[in-house]
């Protein structure tokens, strides 16, 4: 790679000023082609990247083919039961060895010259082998096996042979949130079939920022707020909760639900018939995990950003949103829903139905997110306005969810990696990790305080619900029919 981008002092992309409590990002980060190319080598070629969920390859031979970090790969469970991430490129002359998006097979046959590979990646068949000399060994021509690993069902890959961190080390504080998701079923979570494949004409980082931005919720999503309020839920301007930096660019928001949660949090948004079932599930969680952790699993929403390009949002449903740069000004978005494998069929229907109202390219919220980030991208064409501001909450000890701490955590890691600090300097980071750990401990104290707040909010919710019902009655009376 010949592109070199050496930021000069005073020409930085990310300006993080802890004294003036100012955090600014030069908008070239969203528009510049050279920076976009450099991101591929300094970020996507280096980090651990999300590939998929183990439930997508349930049986020996199951596979999915997709692009990760701009590279076509196949995630496949071999006949030996082991999940591998293989290069979807023939070692002979390059063709995709798998052109189906998903399926089950004992072997992959390259359509170009019929080389055949086992579902573990070994080359097992070459037509007309007499054309090769004695030095040709099949063992040298298996499909490239990428370094992959999984954490609680979430499979990641890294294309950096020298990536110094194990997956668990890389995930840092994000593991706590993956635990809160995978703990939602004793028999495991599964991806529901039917992916929402969409995109935006905007830089990929805008979607990452948007996904952890709660500040915009009441402004941009008036129609969704109106919708859930019409169903008897309440969305106060300030909700209990907080944003957290989880280290190494990962971040999360944790907040009081604005609506119901299909796992175990009933509000009048859901039919009365399922109330007892949902509350029984909630009680089982208390038995399994104790009141405090059960409350956190079942009665709290969260949005987890895993650096660089995956978001897991756990609210009215759980979505895994993988965001891939296509160019400086375009991205592809792949969203799937995650749910407990052993879910009651009625609740599963509710989950799917409400998932669609909020999430996805035709929901009552996501289309506005897509349009607004495209609007930002167009706004950047006016280069006179050079910086975007992400300083909300720098003045607070405990940033709220409406602050921009998660985005800052993302950008700080982006800045480190773009400067070539790709984690090979473990020693430097170790200090950081210690600091983050201290932060985590501090946050835990915070959590306890916020939980009390959550309980208070729930009381409020009940009051508001009564109010809403009253208003509705009023409305119906007032509206001419």
């Amino acid at each position, binding site marked *: 790679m010949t592109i070199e981008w050496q930021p000069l002092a005073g020409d930085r992309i990310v300006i993080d000023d802890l004294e003036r409590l100012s955090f600014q990002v030069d908008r070239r980060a969203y528009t510049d082609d050279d920076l976009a190319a450099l991101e591929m080598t300094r970020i996507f070629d280096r980090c651990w990247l999300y590939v998929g969920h183990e439930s997508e390859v349930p049986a020996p031979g199951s596979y999915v083919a997709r692009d990760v970090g701009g590279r076509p790969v196949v995630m496949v469970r071999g006949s030996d039961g082991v999940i591998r991430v293989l290069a979807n490129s023939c070692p002979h002359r390059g063709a995709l060895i798998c052109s189906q998006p998903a399926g089950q097979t004992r072997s992959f046959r390259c359509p170009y010259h019929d080389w055949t590979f086992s579902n573990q990646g070994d080359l097992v068949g070459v037509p007309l082998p007499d054309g090769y000399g004695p030095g040709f060994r099949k063992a040298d021509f298996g499909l490239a096996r990428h370094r992959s690993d999984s954490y609680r069902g979430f499979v990641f890959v890294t294309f950096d042979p020298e990536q110094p961190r194990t997956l668990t080390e890389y995930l840092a504080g994000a593991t706590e949130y993956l635990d809160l998701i995978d703990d939602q079923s004793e028999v495991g979570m599964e991806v529901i079939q039917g*992916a929402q494949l*969409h995109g935006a004409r905007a830089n990929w980082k805008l979607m990452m920022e948007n996904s952890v931005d709660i500040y915009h919720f009441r402004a941009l999503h008036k129609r969704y707020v*109106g*919708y859930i309020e019409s169903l008897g839920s309440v969305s106060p301007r300030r909700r209990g909760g907080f944003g957290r930096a989880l280290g190494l660019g990962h971040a999360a928001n944790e907040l009081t639900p604005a609506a119901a949660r299909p796992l175990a949090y009933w509000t009048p948004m859901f039919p009365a018939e399922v109330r007892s079932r949902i509350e029984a599930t909630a009680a089982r969680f208390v038995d399994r995990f104790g009141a405090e952790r059960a409350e956190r699993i079942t009665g709290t929403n969260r949005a987890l950003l895993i650096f660089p390009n995956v978001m897991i949002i756990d609210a009215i449903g759980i979505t895994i949103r993988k965001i891939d740069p296509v160019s400086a000004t375009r991205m592809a978005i792949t969203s799937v*829903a995650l749910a407990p494998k052993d879910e009651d069929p009625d609740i599963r229907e509710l989950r799917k139905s409400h998932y669609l*109202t909020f999430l996805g*390219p*035709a929901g009552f919220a996501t289309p506005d997110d*897509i349009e*607004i980030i495209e609007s930002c991208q167009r706004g950047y064409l006016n280069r006179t306005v050079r910086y975007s501001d992400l300083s909300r909450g720098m003045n607070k000890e405990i940033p709220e969810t409406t602050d921009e701490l998660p985005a800052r955590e993302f950008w700080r890691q982006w800045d480190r990696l773009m400067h070539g600090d790709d984690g090979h300097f473990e020693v430097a980071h170790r200090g950081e990790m210690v600091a983050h750990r201290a932060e985590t401990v501090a946050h835990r104290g915070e959590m306890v305080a916020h939980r009390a707040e959550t309980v208070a909010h729930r009381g409020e919710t009940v009051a508001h619900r009564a109010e809403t019902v009253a208003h509705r009655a009023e409305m119906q009376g007032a509206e001419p029919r």
Partner: protein
Amino acid sequence: MTTVLTVDEAAPVRLWHRVSQFLFREARLLDEWRLREWYDEMLTDDIRYSVPATDVRGEKADALGLIDDDAARLRQRIEQLLNGEVWCENPRSRTNRMISNVEIVTDRGTHLDVAANVVVYRFGHGRSDAYVGKYRFELVVEGESLRVRRRVVVLDHETLYEHGKLSIIL
């Protein structure tokens, strides 16, 4: 050579014509954003409107799709679109629906299974998109009038990477 159509032979032609006119009127009301009129006059009370995912395309009943509206949610969608709170449809998209290959697949007397091809062009916020798909409708015959009870739009796109979103009614 001249052929005289018997009454029996003319009936399916008339029905096909009625169904086609119905679909064209629906397209016009949607293009003109006369969504309440469309909802009130052309749909049944138990209408279901769905758009399956582009990968599994409605082949799996338990799969998640893009849209799965019952009457209440469709009404919500319409009210939201009309009241100006939908930022991505304000100003409103300009749309043009082209319908062809109208076919009465099955005539069950009280209702008809109808198939058609559709292209919906959408312009707005500086972008232009075309949604290409197949209509799979169940029409209820009530005397002289028709109403839609099941309205499935199966998109032919592999992905919506280019479109980004689907904020109009297809």
